[in-house]
């Protein structure tokens, strides 16, 4: 009997995607991510309604908007957008190399590009799903008592979620790349890169902060610059920031694919 032809890139990636989603859904990482999202949403909503006690109804919408924007800026841009890609993609390749299960995939007639893409897509899709659903939940819970603002502010929230989407894609690419390149130190290298280049650099003075995709995404979201010497921070328009973030994300993804394609992955032992 003739063996079936080798699977196409799309089919291979789809099978790997399904496998990875199943594994993530049954793993502790996803539970941890869900708990983190719930805590952020709960904290912001609690803070928003607690602040209402000291002011009259005339300032309620203003305070709600302020609380929700702060929630997005601190809870999402400075926490969840780092945590979720890190949890769901940094070890996607690395744990298979270290756990020696990658052998099962690389001995199949499927291209290694499909393996990398399937794993990336699964992690990124779940991370994105969590960020977007948490963001929408925050919006609806935050404006629950202000029906007019609930719909008036939806555009601003969607803009924030758009910026977060780009950022999640890019951070997932970065994490999967570092995990594929240095599987034995995937977690620490990904965490260091995100902490130094993305988190700290976003608060640097002047043009330095432009190396951080996080800063560009916050500009797209319409947040005022923070960090050191915010008055000297460059203003980045959406039509420049968004393509730059997407390009950087794509670049890291291509690098990850190339790394997986050509690595032997010796599993540390001969």
């Amino acid at each position, binding site marked *: *009997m003739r*063996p*079936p*032809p*080798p*699977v196409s890139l799309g*089919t*291979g990636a789809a*099978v*790997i995607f*399904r*496998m990875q989603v*199943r*594994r993530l859904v*049954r*793993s502790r990482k996803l539970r941890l991510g869900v708990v983190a999202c719930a805590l952020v949403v709960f904290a912001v909503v609690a803070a928003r309604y607690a602040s209402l006690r000291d002011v009259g109804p005339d300032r309620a919408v203003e305070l709600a908007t302020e609380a929700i924007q702060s929630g997005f800026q601190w809870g999402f841009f400075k926490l969840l957008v780092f945590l979720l890609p890190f949890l769901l993609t940094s070890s996607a390749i690395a744990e298979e190399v270290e*756990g*020696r*299960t990658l*052998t*099962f*995939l*690389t*001995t*199949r*007639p*499927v*291209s*290694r590009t499909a393996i990398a893409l399937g794993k990336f897509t699964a992690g990124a899709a779940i991370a994105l799903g969590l960020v977007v659903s948490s963001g929408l939940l925050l919006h609806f819970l935050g404006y629950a008592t202000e029906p007019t603002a609930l719909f008036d502010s939806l555009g601003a929230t969607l803009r924030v979620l758009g910026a977060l989407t780009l950022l999640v894609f890019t951070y997932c690419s970065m994490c999967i790349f570092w995990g594929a390149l240095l599987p034995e130190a995937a977690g620490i290298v990904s965490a260091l890169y995100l902490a130094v280049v993305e988190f700290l650099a976003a608060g640097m003075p002047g043009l330095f902060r432009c190396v951080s995709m996080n800063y560009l995404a916050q500009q797209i979201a319409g947040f005022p610059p923070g960090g050191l010497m915010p008055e000297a921070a460059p203003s980045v328009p959406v039509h420049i920031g968004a393509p730059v973030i997407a390009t950087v994300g794509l670049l890291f993804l291509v690098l990850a694919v190339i790394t997986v*394609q*050509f690595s*032997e*992955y*010796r*599993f540390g032992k*001969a």
Partner: protein
Amino acid sequence: MSQEPSIRAVRLSKWYGKITALQDVSLHLGPGIWGLLGPNGSGKTTFLRLCAGQLKPALGEVTICGRRPFGNPDALRLLGLCPEADAMYDELTALEFVTSMAELSGYGRREATERAAEALERFGLGEAMERRIGGYSRGMRQRAKLAQSVVHDPRVILLDEPLTGTDPASRHMILGEIRRRADEGAVVLFSTHVLPEVEAITDRVLLIARGQLVAQGLVHEIRDLLEEHPHHIRVYTPKPRELAAAVLHVEGIVGVQFAPFGVELMTYDPDATYDVLTEKILELDLPFESISSPDANLEALFHYLVERSTRGAGTGADAAVGTYRPMQSQLEAGAGAAPYRPQADGPGGAR
């Protein structure tokens, strides 16, 4: 491109930094079951991983049915690998795992599920296939690994220590399935360091030691070699000279060596020597702590073969006794500049 199931290696070498894992291995295996014997760390797994396209050769080449396997889907679809490591996707059920592997081999979802269920049934996991692998015993995990390696009916099956952790009933089932695949025309390369495991399934073996293929032949020839290889017996005693003097005349003993622990005897007739030793110790009332044999295993034979092949100017020419054929010297002429010409050796034989 050859479509006949085969594994061919020509002057295949692989090293990791300064460590040589495999050196100048040449062979050509046709359909049937082949035992790959060697002590731990001898290069068996490296050889299998090179065959499975997991590693790139440092020198030489390996082909599966005429195709280089590394990153080559056309070659990979023809082979199945059961790796040695006890590594599995613990979050998945066996059915999900094997179905995914079948899908990655090119089957549609429905056919992949049917094939996976059939493969798992064959390996005795029919009732447990819907359970997560994380809850499996070692033997069940091993059988799930074997099921994934044959779910797509590969022409070349590479099994790295496939009987590890299995009970006698499972072994019987696994060996039966391997035989069936070989009877259908597949090449099965079965790696182990336990001679009886190979004996149970094939009489054709390759011996690998220190990264070199030292010999190939029939299992009974290995048995003969084990008998011809001087057997070492260590006697831990404070009076080694008295003991040595008492047993030196015994037929079969070819050497005596004194050591800090006592004395080491070299004999071609271990059974008779053990009998005489016991008699003499009782007769002379010699004090002793224990008697042991450091080399009652294949490892000693491998060292013996390697040493002998080294003495044979590196050709491996006297690496074997009797009809034993050292592969390296057989293939030397065909593996170099001249085109490789297999030497017919009957159907399915090594060439």
